[in-house]
Structures are given as C-alpha cells and as structure tokens.
C-alpha cells in the first residue's frame, strides 16, 4: 500500500529524516516509535505531502506521490491526523466532520446557491457523519463549536474528521497524547475495529507502547532520523539497540 524508499529531509544542517525505507502492507497497522525529535512528525509530513523530501521516493497504491500536493495525496485515499488537534475550532463538530466528505456539489459556488442541487448529498453526508460521530461518542455534541470540546474529544474529532473523507490509509500522530488511559485504549479499539471492518491501513506514531504493541502488526523504530529497527512488536521489545536508545536499559 505504502512504500517508502531512502527518504531524506534536512532542516539546515540537521537531517531530520535520513535514508528511511519501509513498507506498509494493505490492511496493516504499523506503529512508528522513537524518542522525541527522532523525525516521526517530519516523516508523516513528508508522506502527507506537506513537506517535500530532498531525496528518496514515496509510493502509495502503486502511484508515485513523492512530489504530489497534500490535497492530491488526500484525494488518493491517504489521510492524516495531527499531533496537536488542528480542528476548525470556530466551526461546529458536525461541520468539521462534513468538510472532508468527497461528493459535495455544493462546494462549487455555481451550485452552492441552489439548495435543491446539493441537499440530497448533504443529507447523505450528514447521515454518514452521524454514524461516525455516534461511534466516536461525539453525536450529542454535533452542534457545539469544536473549541468547546475537551482535549480527548478533540483528538477523537480529529480522527473522525480524517475518516470522513473515506481514506484507505490513515496517518496518525500520537492519537492518544494527553488523553486519559481508558480513553486511549478505546481510541485504539476504534482503530482496530476500523482496521477489521473497513480494511483501513494505519501508520501510527505513538508513545504509549503498552497500548500500541497490543494493536500493531509491525513496528518501525526511528532514531535520529534513521530506522533503527523494524519488525513484529515482540521482536522489537527484545532488540538490544532499541532497548538501549528507547527504553534506556
């Protein structure tokens, strides 16, 4: 599904991502871990097209997306969430969820004034948003401003919003940061459900290894921009180098 080859990106003299290669298979959940500043967010930005790499390539679903724009990448079915929820805080929960919906005739100003032309679509999208919000337990808050939500709810809405564009793969940046442990596990249960039912692939940056390791098929360990280790969770825990840099053992 996603193939990354020799990806490198520097900021000034600093190589934030340095020759990274790995694959994420169809329907796989991949964990991306590494100490702070090891280049995880930069890697996600590169994949999502918000940064461009110096060298290397990214393929998604067989297409070269190395130099594609973020909107084009999203339309191919590769969506992302944000480390700090980057919601539209002045807009309602429902509008946040509806925005990424694919079929929206009313997004063109030529059709927009004619309600009848897009009402059906909007109803359909709203019904889908309804189900999505229900699942994330945000249904009751649908007409609140996003800024009124609690930190955990914001995280959920951020994920929900990414899902609303019906992606086939989702990049998540620390989806449980600042969330209570119970909710954190719930978020991962949602992810597992989506993975099972909708065959969605995931690439998840996460610090809570105890939870993460219960849910992922493979783990990539980044250290100073390089892939330190990659493999099944059990093997990663045993890897001596990983224990050294990551667990400080």
């Amino acid at each position: 599904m996603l193939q990354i080859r020799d990806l490198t990106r520097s900021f000034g003299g600093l190589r934030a991502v340095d020759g990274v290669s790995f694959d994420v298979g169809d329907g796989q959940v991949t964990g991306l871990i590494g100490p702070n500043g090891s280049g995880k967010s930069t890697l996600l930005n590169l994949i999502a097209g918000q940064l461009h790499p110096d060298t290397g390539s990214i393929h998604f679903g067989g297409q070269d997306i190395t130099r594609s724009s973020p909107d084009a990448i999203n339309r191919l079915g590769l969506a992302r969430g944000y480390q700090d929820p980057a919601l539209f805080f002045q807009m309602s929960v429902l509008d946040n969820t509806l925005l990424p919906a694919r079929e929206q005739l009313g997004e063109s100003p030529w059709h927009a004034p004619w309600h009848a032309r897009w009402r059906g679509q909007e109803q359909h999208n709203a019904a889908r948003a309804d189900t999505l919000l229900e699942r994330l337990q945000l249904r009751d808050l649908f007409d609140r401003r996003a800024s009124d939500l609690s930190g955990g709810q914001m995280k959920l809405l951020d994920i929900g919003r990414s899902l609303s564009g019906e992606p086939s793969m989702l990049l998540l940046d620390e989806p449980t940061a600042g969330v209570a442990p119970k909710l954190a596990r719930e978020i991962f249960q949602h992810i597992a459900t989506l993975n099972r039912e909708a065959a969605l692939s995931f690439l998840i940056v996460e610090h809570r290894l105890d939870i993460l390791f219960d849910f992922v098929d493979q783990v990539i360990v980044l250290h100073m921009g390089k892939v330190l280790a990659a493999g099944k969770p059990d093997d990663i825990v045993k890897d001596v180098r990983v224990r050294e840099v990551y667990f400080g053992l």
Partner: protein
Amino acid sequence: MPPALLITSLVHSIQVGSLYALMALGITLTMRVIRLPNFAHAEFVTTGAFTALVVSLFLSRSPVVILGLATLSGALVALSSHLLVFRPMSRRKLSTYSMLLVSFAVGLILRYVLFVLSDYYQLFDKRIQIPLQILVRESYLVLTNITFTIVPVSIACVIALALLLGRTALGREMRALASNPELAHILGMRVERIRSLTWLLTGATAGLAGALWGLYTFVNPLLGWLAILPVFAAAILGGLSSFAGTILGAYLVAFCENTLMQALNHYTGLTFSFKAAIPFVIIILVLLLRPQGLTGFVRRSGDLER
C-alpha cells in the same frame, strides 16, 4: 541622456535615498522586534515635519534645535501610540491583518488631526524656516546647505543605528527579541522595556526623517503617507530583516524613482506622472519573485503553508 540631467537626478537619488534609508530602517525595526508592519510610521514622520515647521516658525531657526525637537516629537508620538494603542491591542492577540488595520487606524487619526491643526493654524504648504545658503552653483545644478544637511545627517543616523544594534547590549537584546520572543522571555529579558525603547528609537528616526524631508520639500499632512509606500519598497528590498539590504534598497528605490525615471522619460517619452508607480512595481515584483529581497537565504518552495 545629457550629463546635466544625469547629475541632477543622481543628486536627487542620493538625497531621497538617504531619507528613505532612515525611514525604512524604522519600518524594518518595528517589523522585526515588534512584528508589526507599521503603516502609522508615515504619520510619525509627518509629526516630525510639522514639529520642525512650528519650531522654525515660532521658536528657533537653529538647525540643531529644529532637528532635535522634531526627533523628540517623533519619539514621543511613537511611544504614546505604543502605550495607548499597540500594546493593549497586542494583548488581545489580534490577527496580523487586524494589527495592520490598527496601524492604519492610528495613522489615519494622526494624519487627519494634523490636517485639522494645520487648517486651523494655516500651516498648509509652508516651508521650514532655515537660512538658505547656496554652496554650489553650476548652470544645471544648485546645491544648498539643505542637501549638505540632509545627506550627512541621515547617513550618520543610519550608521549610529546600525552600531547601536550591532554593538550595544540594547541592540543585542533587540535582536534576540526579534529572532525568538519566547526565548527572550525565558531568559528573563525585560521584554516590555526593550519594546518601548524600540518604539522610541523608530519614532525618533521617523521624526528626524520627517524634519529632513520637510526641509527638502513643503510640509503638509500627507508628507509621510506619500513617502511610506516607497519606504516599504526599500524595506522589502532589504527582505524586511537585513539592515544593509534595507539601506541598499532605499538608494535603489530612490535611484529608480529619479535617475531611471529621468532616463525612461528621455528615451521612451514616459511621462513623469508614472513616477509614483515605480516603487509600487518594485514592491509587487520583489514580493512575488524574490521575497527575501536583496539579501537573505532562499526558502524551499512548496513547504508547509503558514
């Protein structure tokens, strides 16, 4: 082009360029330290010009007194705008556009208050009273003591400002604040004091520039406003960050407005009414094609949108 025209236009370029440099440095300083594109700078300049006019009419004709009081008035107006308007506003965390609008509003109020005052006291289009001496008289070129005041004073001031920023503790603090406000706070710098001093300093240079500009032309309430866009052009040529670039930019803008315009007129017949558009074209081209101006480093295109 006849040498006479060339020489006169070059002399104009140097005079105007020196004044632009003085004003543009203030803009760059506010931009960097306060993070505000300050359009009210225009009216700090005008205030200086009017102070010089009033002082020369009613108080003293000594250039030192005139320029000194003009400098002071600019500094005071800038500081009071900061204390009364800009500081309380910035605490409200308004967007850049709103702050831009605030600076427009401050400028608008000052400008039209000056209109009302100069209407009331009949100060329109008066000249600053300084004894005029003709120092060079050629057939095509007359140089008075005014040229020999404007140019050295502005250049001295520009150098002093550069030294202050580069060599003094205050300058270091200002630069630190410009590059990283959070860090400046953490390091326990007296941020508020530095900000106030920055306003004083930019106001003072604006006031002085206004008085010198007034010496060069007539004094009227639109004086600063009409100069501010060329001055922004100069600051933008300096990438809104580099001092050397800004000074170079100032002379370049003045050169284009005078010598280049003269040449265009001579060779293509372009009328002088297009002169005012030259700095605008510079602004648009630089912002679109080379936003780092004459200096600065190249950003990577296509990166995260801000």
